[in-house]
């Protein structure tokens, strides 16, 4: 890198952004309209609902100020749900990232048998979450499941009836479904790395491990940030999977924020508090996404290929 020529600042962008004649801001319109209609408007509705105490039945919605917020924030269930959400987020990130990264490296190579494997790895992503959950629930059934059927002692655990095990199962099933997706992201990222770098490293005598840690990993910085953002923010919204597998149980061992929100809103008919939790979910998600962007350095669009 020290031999690289001084970086020449690129020419200032032309006045007509996009480099072609005429304004292209219209290109953002279709996405913007959809986002406002299905993202911003419902969000405003939820924020407004959180200041009411609607029971889903009455046609008028009584405005009750901060009551819903007070009841949610003073409920010991909220810190518990936040903790469960955080645990699922952290554990599934820790579990998924190394595996996806290694699998990504594996299938990035242009070899036919690896392409075949890549297709197979991809299958879990094509299945619906509900179907996956129902299948796993049946497989893990303590009396009629895999353990009882095959007679393996170590499989005969109370997988979904023990607090710790149930949480681990949730993390495992989530990872099982989403590792293929992140593998795909990493595969794409790795194929972007110029082969000249590896060739140069080989000439310098770097082994495979060294190449992985000194070239692949640093070059994948933004891919890792993208993948982590998707994992972390996505894990906030895990609902269907948890709902079908454990319904938040046993007790409240797997009651993450999204499950808590659903139970309050649609089971207990407390739309105000449920909306307050929804707002908290949005804020936590935004904060996490922003935080992860910051991790990428001040200028996230800076090039990693200077001097190549």
């Amino acid at each position: 890198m020290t031999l690289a020529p001084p970086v020449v600042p690129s020419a200032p962008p032309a006045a007509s952004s996009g480099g072609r004649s005429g304004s292209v801001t219209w290109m953002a319109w279709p996405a913007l309209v959809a986002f406002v209609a299905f993202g911003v408007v419902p969000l405003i509705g939820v924020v407004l609902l959180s200041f009411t105490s609607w029971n889903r039945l009455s046609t008028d919605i009584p405005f009750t100020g901060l009551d819903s917020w007070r009841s949610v924030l003073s409920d010991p269930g909220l810190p518990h749900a936040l903790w469960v959400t955080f645990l699922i987020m952290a554990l599934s990130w820790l579990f998924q990232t190394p595996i996806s990264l290694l699998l990504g490296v594996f299938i990035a190579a242009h070899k036919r048998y690896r392409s075949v494997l890549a297709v197979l790895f991809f299958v879990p992503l094509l299945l619906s979450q509900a179907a996956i959950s129902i299948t796993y629930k049946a497989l893990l059934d303590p009396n009629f499941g895999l353990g009882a059927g095959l007679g393996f002692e170590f499989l005969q655990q109370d997988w979904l009836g023990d607090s710790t095990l149930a949480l681990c199962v949730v993390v495992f099933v989530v990872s099982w479904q989403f590792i293929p997706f992140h593998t795909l992201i990493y595969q794409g990222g790795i194929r972007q790395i110029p082969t000249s770098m590896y060739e140069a490293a080989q000439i310098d005598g770097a082994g495979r491990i060294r190449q992985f840690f000194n070239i692949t990993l640093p070059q994948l910085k933004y891919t890792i940030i993208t993948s982590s953002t998707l994992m972390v923010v996505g894990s906030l919204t895990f609902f269907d999977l948890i709902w079908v597998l454990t319904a938040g149980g046993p007790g409240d061992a797997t009651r993450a924020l999204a499950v808590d929100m659903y139970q309050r809103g649609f089971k207990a008919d407390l739309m105000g508090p449920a909306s307050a939790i929804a707002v908290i979910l949005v804020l936590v998600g935004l904060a996490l996404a922003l935080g992860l962007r910051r991790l990428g350095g001040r200028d996230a669009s800076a090039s990693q290929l200077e001097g190549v």
Partner: protein
Amino acid sequence: MKRRNFLTLSAGAAAGAALAACGSSGPSDGSTGDTASGEAGYWFLSGPPGEPIRQGAVDRFNKANSGGQIKVTTFQNDAYKDKLKTALGAGQAPSIIWGWGGGGLKSYVDNNQVDDLTDWFAQNPAVKDRLFPASFGPATINDKIYAMPCETVQPIVMFYNKEVFEKLKLTPPQTWGEVMSLVPKINAAGVAPFSLGGQSRWTNMMWLEFLFDRIGGPEVFQSVFDGEANAWNNPAAIQGLTEMQKLIQANGFVKGFSSITADSNADQALLYRGKAAMMLHGSWSYGIISAEGGSFIKDGKLGYMNFPTVEGGKGDPSNTVGNAGQFLSIYSKASDAQKETAKKFFTSLLDDTEQQGWIETGGVPIVKGSDAKLAASPDADFLKFIYNVSSSAKYFGQSWDQALSPTAAETLLDNIAKLFQMQVSPQQFADNMNQVIGK
């Protein structure tokens, strides 16, 4: 005023989006059919065994009446509850609302969503007098009748596997003491004493309903229902909760019960496959075992009895709990012509054909004297047992989660799940529940 309009608008938009997201499972314009001609919308639960019988009743009514017709839309159980609430909130519910009575009905009443039928029943005593009096309990809110009881009575009873008891040379328990002494003996044989679909939570609740009643009588839960402060601190309640946890700690329930759902019917399967000796469940389990359990019933292996007594308890041993019937209400925003159609439909319900239909599914229609029809059924023994339990019960308690408001019911189910996980003590359970009394 402005703010309220906007709130209604945004809520409507959210509900609309939710409905759209639910896909094509039916029109959302329940009652907005042809209001002038009195075409009345009617939503009910899909799936066997009830759907064809409900549909049959509608078809016969529509054939016999050239005027106002009934238009049917069916839903699955959980989807129905959500969709109905959304439709009520949006002012688009069907003219005829199928439900479970009790706390759910009360929340409709509190929001003026359903009509008071007290006067109509007074004018049509014949409609009222032919039904079980107990079936009007959950239909009555503040001494007024808001729903027409229909369909079948479903008490909770104790099922047992005769084969298991014969093999172990044991007799089914008559008292709570016998239950507790049987548990280690059955466990020792490698069989679970009781099957339980604990993840569904209301399955656990049935145990508490009986224990409370047997120990302290119906008054214990009645005082909760009436909203008395600290009603859960009643010594009978604490004793019931304590006995419950003793049974759980003695491994009274099948291993992994807290991850078994009732919807999967795995709890019935445990019983008829001989992996569990007993099961406390709704009378509808008979139909499930009959359909899925092979020749289990035909071979005479299924036993059933009322819940055991508790030594020194105040409750009458004939008392039972469960569903005293299903309930039809009339949507208050339906047109007059639609309401007329609905009432005419009500008088046509539970005719001989419909009664026969329910009996064939193993259900007892809530019509007085329907026991005369039971004898011809291949399931006559069980049906007569259910008829006797239902008609001779001194007190027919309503399922707690149906009796309470949805808000209190959710807190109750949540705490029951924790009680069964030993996450809360009986006193903590009572403290948590006392906070939502009257809510």
